[in-house]
Every structure is written in C-alpha cells, then in structure tokens.
C-alpha cells in the first residue's frame, strides 16, 4: 500500500451543496446570509447544518437529488460562540442525550447502552481515514471515549484497531495505560473486519450480547469530541483519495457538501474510473456530478477497466466466504421470502462479488446498498 503522511486540507471550494430533506422545515430564503454550523433545514429525523458561511444562491438538482447551493465566503463565520470546555467528562447523561438529539450525533442512539464499540478499522482495507485520525488525534479520541464511558455509565468498551500499521499500534499502546476502562482490540488485516455488523458480532460475546451496544467509529468520536468541547459539529469529513493512478494515497479533510468535480479538477483527474467507498462494495460513478457527504469514505481513481460477467458456475465460493452465513447466490437469483430474508441479513461487505470467479456482482441485490 502506498504510504500516507498526514491529512491534506481541501477546504477551498467556491460552492457548497447541502441536501434538501423530504418534508423538511426550511429556515432560509434565497439571498440570505448563512453562518457556519447554522441549521438550514430539518425534518423529523435529520437536520442539515451549513458547513461554511456565505450567501444562499438557491437550489439545484444533482443526480435527481435537490440541493441548496451556498456561495462560500471563506470566512467560516459563526453566529454564536460556545467557548471551550476544559473537561469533557463533566456532562451529565441527560445533557449528553440532549446534545445527541440536538446535533444528530449518533445513528440509532440507545441511551441504555452498556457496551461501547469504537471502530478504528477502515471499512475497506485500502482506506486510511481512521488510521491517520488515530495517529493525528490519539489523545482527543481516547479522552472522548473515556468521557463517554463515564457519561453513559458504560460497562465494557472496546477500541478495535487494525494491527497492520505499527505506528498507530505503538502510539495507542503508549497511551492506553492512562485509560484503563478502554479495552484495545487488535485485529489482523482482513477484508471485512472494518464492517460494522461483522465487528459487532466479533466483539460481543455471549455475556455482552444481553446489553444494547453503542457503535461508533473514529469520525463519530471526533464529532462528539468537538460537540462536547466546542459545542459544535465538525463541518468537514475525512476521505481517502487513492487508486492505482494516484502516486501517494492521501487523506483529505473536505467540507461536507463539496462537489466531487472540484476535487477531480484540483487533482487533474481525467477520463478515469472513479469509485467511491472502496473497491469491494463501492459505487462506480458515471460522472463527477456527485456531492461529498458524511457517508463518503474514499475516492478511488483507477484506470478504466471493464470486467465482464460470465454465467454462474455454481462453485459456492460466495457461500463459503460469506461472513454472515447467508447464500448470496440465492439472494441474487431469487425473489422469494428466503431471498428477502437473506437481503435483510446481508451486510453488503462485497466479499461474495470479490471471490466470484464469474465476476457476478452478487451483492447488488443487497438491501444495505452503498449510499
């Protein structure tokens, strides 16, 4: 794997595109000045924050999705300043729940969780986001996990890390002694261990299974840290820029709502295959009209390659390699209740497609399709 040094900022985009949610209440109108971290709109489930300050230019449609367009003034002006908290573990559980609700910090948040799993392993093996963040923000991450244990009264906490980067392991081992409540779990390099469901299954023993699990990744932890410390969410996300046409893999700090075409233009990438979120279960883009949001983990820039699908040869490799013990072939070729059940259980890790000698995209039928 090509080495990555540190995080590269890509914060200089002229325009920011933020999604217009269905059935949402909108708090702006065209021409309004928007501050950074200001709530633009919200519905029952979600809120959309501005990642920059600037004027609202209007709305546009990209790939059948509606977006608000904001003209970035590069000032990152904040409406109100919260002030920095000295100790982030001084929050009460009720205060924390309020913050989670206010900032939409955690998906499927269960306030009664007693087991905390922090995933420090990137979902796809060539992604480097969590590795780099663990190296760059070791103390902040460990502090935040420790604070969460105290605030949420967590009984068992695991920090899962890949052992393929000795520097990260070294830094963590040097610091973990100060945080006795965090159980550091090292995993060897495997294609799917970074997958949420697979990791939860690995770490929750019979004893822990009776407790509800709170699952967070390193990006979530940094977000929570920012909220607890500064009273605001991160306005950017981290993505790995890599692929066989990239000399050195980079981790980019990108404003949420940046257009992919800005990144592609900046790095002078032309006429190549662009794949987002890994080569196992990622999505190949037909064009660069794509907006970076919090769900985007990586951009792969690869040489144009066409892999032809052949007929299924019934080899069973998909079944034998499935980490959740379903039958991907059955799921792909059938539409009955059994196939639907498999689709529900599928974690869309992409291993079946990876192993398929006929190059059939078996995980295509999965319900948990990459967003």
């Amino acid at each position: 794997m090509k080495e990555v040094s540190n995080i590269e900022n890509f914060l200089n985009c002229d325009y920011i595109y933020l999604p217009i949610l269905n059935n949402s209440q909108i708090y702006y109108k065209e021409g309004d000045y928007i501050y950074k971290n200001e709530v633009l709109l919200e519905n029952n489930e979600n809120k959309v924050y501005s990642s920059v300050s600037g004027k609202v230019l209007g709305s546009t449609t990209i790939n059948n999705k509606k977006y608000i367009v904001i003209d970035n003034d590069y000032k990152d002006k904040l409406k109100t300043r919260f002030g920095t908290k000295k100790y982030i573990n001084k929050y009460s559980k009720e205060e924390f729940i309020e913050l989670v609700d206010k900032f939409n910090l955690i998906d499927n948040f269960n306030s009664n969780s007693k087991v905390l799993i922090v995933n420090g392993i990137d979902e796809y093996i060539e992604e480097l986001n969590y590795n780099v963040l663990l190296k760059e923000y070791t103390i902040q991450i460990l502090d935040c996990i420790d604070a969460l244990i105290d605030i949420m009264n967590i009984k068992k906490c695991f920090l899962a890390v890949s052992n393929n980067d000795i520097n990260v392991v070294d830094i963590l081992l040097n610091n973990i002694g100060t945080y006795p409540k965090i159980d550091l779990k090292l995993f060897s390099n495997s294609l799917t261990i970074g997958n949420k469901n697979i990791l939860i299954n690995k770490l929750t023993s019979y004893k822990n299974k009776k407790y509800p699990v709170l699952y967070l990744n390193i990006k979530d932890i940094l977000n929570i840290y920012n909220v607890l410390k500064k009273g605001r969410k991160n306005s950017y996300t981290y993505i790995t820029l890599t692929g066989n046409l990239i000399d050195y893999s980079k981790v980019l700090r990108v404003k949420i709502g940046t257009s992919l075409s800005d990144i592609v233009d900046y790095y002078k990438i032309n006429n190549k295959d662009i794949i987002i979120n890994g080569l196992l279960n990622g999505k190949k883009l037909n064009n660069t009209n794509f907006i970076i949001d919090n769900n985007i983990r990586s951009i792969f820039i690869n040489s144009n390659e066409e892999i032809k699908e052949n007929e299924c040869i019934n080899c069973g490799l998909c079944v034998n390699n499935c980490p959740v013990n379903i039958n991907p072939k059955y799921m792909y070729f059938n539409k009955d209740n059994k196939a639907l059940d498999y689709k529900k259980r599928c974690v869309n890790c992409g291993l079946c497609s990876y192993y398929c000698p006929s190059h059939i995209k078996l995980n295509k039928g999965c319900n948990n399709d990459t967003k």
Partner: protein
Amino acid sequence: MIQSSNSIKKCYFIYFLSLFPLILFGIYKNGISLYLKDYVSLYGAIKPLLFIIIGFIIGSLVNYIYEVLIKKKKAKLVDIIFSSFHSLYGVLVACIISINTNIILFSTVTFIVLLVSKFIKINKINYIALTSLIIFFIMNLFNEFSFLNNYEASNNFNMNALDYLLGKGSGGIFTTNVLLLIISFIVLYNFKIYKRNIPIFATITFSILTIIYCLIMNDISNIMNMLFTNGILFSFVFIATDSVSSSYTKKGIVIYGIIVGLLTFLLYLVQPALSSLGAILIASICNSFIDLKFE
C-alpha cells in the same frame, strides 16, 4: 472494482495441470505401448491424443458458436473459449470413454450434447456424464462395449494392488492410473473452487459399501477390482466435481458426495462400467433440491 484471482481461466489451468500426468500416461498406455507391441497402427498410437485435442476443439467451438454467432458477443477468442467449462467438458469426455470408441461418434455426440446444453438455463445436469453415457449406449448398439484395449483384450492378467496403482486396470483412456489420480487430487485439493468434499465423501461411501458387500459375498479379492477399475475414482475426482452441475452449499456438497457414492455402488451391481457416470448424472439432476434442503 477488485476481484480475487479466481476465474474460469484459472480453473482451466489448474484442471489441465492436474490432468496432465494422467493424459501422458493414457497416451503411453493406450497408444504408444500398443504401437510398440504391434497391436495398433500409427493412427492407433496417436488416437488417445486425438481424442483430447478433438474434445477441446469441440468444446471451444461450441463456446464460439454460442457466444459469437448466436449471442453476437464481441470479445477476444481466448475469452470466448474460456467463457464456460465446455472445452474442459470435451476433454473430460475424451478421458472417460473407451479407447475403442469411434472418433466420429465421439465428436458428433459431444458436439450435439454440449451445444444443446448451452441453451438449457435451469437445472443443469452433468453433461460430461450424459455425453459419455450416450456414447457408451450407442457403442453397445453396434457391438459389445468394452474398456479393454487390444493388448488387454488378448491377454489374461492376475493383478495386485500395485498393478492397479500403476494403471494396469481397465477403464477409460486416461483414468486407470490410481497413483497419478491421487497426485491430481492433491493438486486440486488446495484449489478454492474445487469441491474436494465430493470425491472424499463419494469415495468413502463407495469404499465402505464395497468392502461390506465383498465381505458378505466372501469375495475379498474383488475389492481392488471394484474400487480401482472402470474409471470410478476418476469420475469422483473430475466429473462429479463439475462445478456447474453439483451442489454448492457446505452441507449440500457432503450430501451430494454421499449420494454419488451410494448410487455408484447400487448401479455397480447392475452395470459396473457405467455405474459412476450414471450415479453422477442422477445426482446432478437432484443438485438444486439438495442445496435447497441441506443448506
């Protein structure tokens, strides 16, 4: 997107690699050695090799006709040849049939069955077994079918275990050398796509039943003959494991192997020469059902 190194081309490479020693031995046993002993002409000496080449060409031709002429697919010739296992099927049919088979009969039947198989999309059956069985039945219509070559037919042998291991038993053109077959199995064993549990469970089932049968019939000397002749082990290793027509789930593969072993034994009591092929053909018809029931 990335793919593992598994591909149909790789399957071909591994299968041909594992078949290679058996093919060399078959060419020597059923061709060159007969020629040197003046049992056959020069044509007879190269006949085993001709079967292999023709089998491969017919399989490739079927793929070409289907992909290029019927489906109008544009691809490299190599990709078309290796787009399915049909070329390998042609070679395996050549391996299992008798040296006494007429080449034109072999070519015609193989071509027709393989071409028809291309159009059957559901419930795939084992076309290697089907083709070989049709050839055997047609041969039987004209004269009595036999696996024995000219030399074996004109002499009587009293064979021991070592003779069978070294390929002196009767069987298909390239199927008799048990020692080389074991080496082939070892080569295939570590190949991920290869369904190793099928030959293992088929052999265990067939061996146990054979031993019990011979003990009951008080005919212990026949055990070796039952196990090592008529290409039974070759069928278990190469034909029953045909990826397309066999079960693919973990339990299904084991059950499939046991069924193949059991049916082979039962059919052996009726017609030894065709027992394994008949068993594989019947088991392959049930493969979807086995997968569904024993997932």
